[in-house]
């Protein structure tokens, strides 16, 4: 793409692809609101509460996907031959996305729980694990904020990113 004589703001970190993706996202958010709130009927069992599921489920999937990307990129950074810092940046950016969407999952989930169970939170295994995963990745982002050279930060956070994933899954597979 040829550099266009635009203002310096247009030449930040955006590309044509990210702009198109952004516009598509805005349109799809409107689409989601239209179908989720207006056009779709209420569920037979859950009633109108099911409408929260239309935002709750995609956010939790996206959060899990982001955490998987973080773990994979951490492994690629640590065990790759070139120790490419690009993988470290993707891992960090993905963890940020994961934390944001996990927060949304917890918010929309507790609102759904308030309608369905009458309480915002229940201490069952799945909810507890989700909350722990959320806090674990907040810790991961805090580790990324520590001082040190780029390479040290990358190695450190890759190790923490890799340790976090199996521990969270261990909490998931506990007895009973």
């Amino acid at each position, binding site marked *: 793409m040829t550099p266009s004589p635009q203002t310096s703001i247009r030449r930040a970190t955006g590309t044509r692809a990210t702009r198109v993706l952004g516009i598509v996202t805005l349109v799809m958010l409107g689409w989601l609101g239209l179908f989720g709130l207006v056009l779709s009927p209420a569920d037979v069992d859950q009633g109108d509460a099911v409408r929260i599921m239309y935002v709750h489920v995609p956010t939790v999937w996206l959060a899990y996907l982001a955490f998987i990307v973080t773990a994979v990129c951490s492994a690629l950074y640590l065990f790759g031959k070139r120790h490419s810092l690009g993988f470290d940046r993707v891992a960090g950016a993905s963890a940020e996305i994961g934390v944001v969407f996990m927060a949304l999952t917890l918010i929309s989930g507790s609102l759904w729980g308030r309608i369905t169970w009458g309480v915002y939170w229940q201490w069952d295994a799945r909810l*507890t694990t989700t909350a*722990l995963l959320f*806090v*674990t990745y*907040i*810790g991961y982002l*805090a*580790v990324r904020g*520590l*001082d*040190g*050279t780029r390479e*040290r930060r990358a*190695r*450190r956070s890759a*190790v*923490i990113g*890799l*340790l*976090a994933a*199996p*521990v969270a899954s*261990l*909490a998931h597979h*506990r*007895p*009973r």
Partner: protein
Amino acid sequence: MSPGRIRLARRLAAKDLLIERRSRVLVNQVLPFSGLVMVVFAFALGTGGVLERAAPGLVWLAVLFSSLSTVQRSFGLETADGAMESLRVAGVDPIALFLGKAAALAIELLVLVTVLLGLAVVLYGTEPRAEGIVLLVTTAISATLGLAALGTIYGGLAAGGSGRETLLPLLVLPVAAPVLIGATRGVEAALGTDRTAVSEGWPWVGLLLVFAVAIGVGGALAFGTLIED
């Protein structure tokens, strides 16, 4: 696992324990603190059955909080005079260093757990029963091993540098949650809290052992990377 590595790990563990025997920081500061935590729990929850039912969980909560201080003490020793730097420059094998620090930590925590379980009998009125003794000891040991390995990993990361000490609880507590849950259920079954049977405790000991092994192996492999700065 070469014999040289094990010998080195034993030396490092002995060094930590010797420092503790001479300085008595844990005995004079952390142990009273954990006892205080148990008393404060009693103030907050009051009497009337709640305390007795919650006793196993409260003991492990007190252990968890005190273990944070213990870990900070253990790595404060290393950073104070640049001892960790010297060990690294001397080419000390990081796996041996991890095993040594974790072993010393495990022994210190085991003493803490024993004292706190004794305090629970005195303060909370919990009664150990004969058939649960084996389960009680196994639970305590396996949970302590997991906590020690976990504390060593994150203690190594959080030692030295500005603003790192406050990071330790944030990193340790979420990962330690499975230990807290498993150890509490195990002790509940051993003591018969809420009429639980002893056999209900063993699956939780399995969880604790899997956790300790996973964290131990992962920590031994990762430790060199975490302490190098």
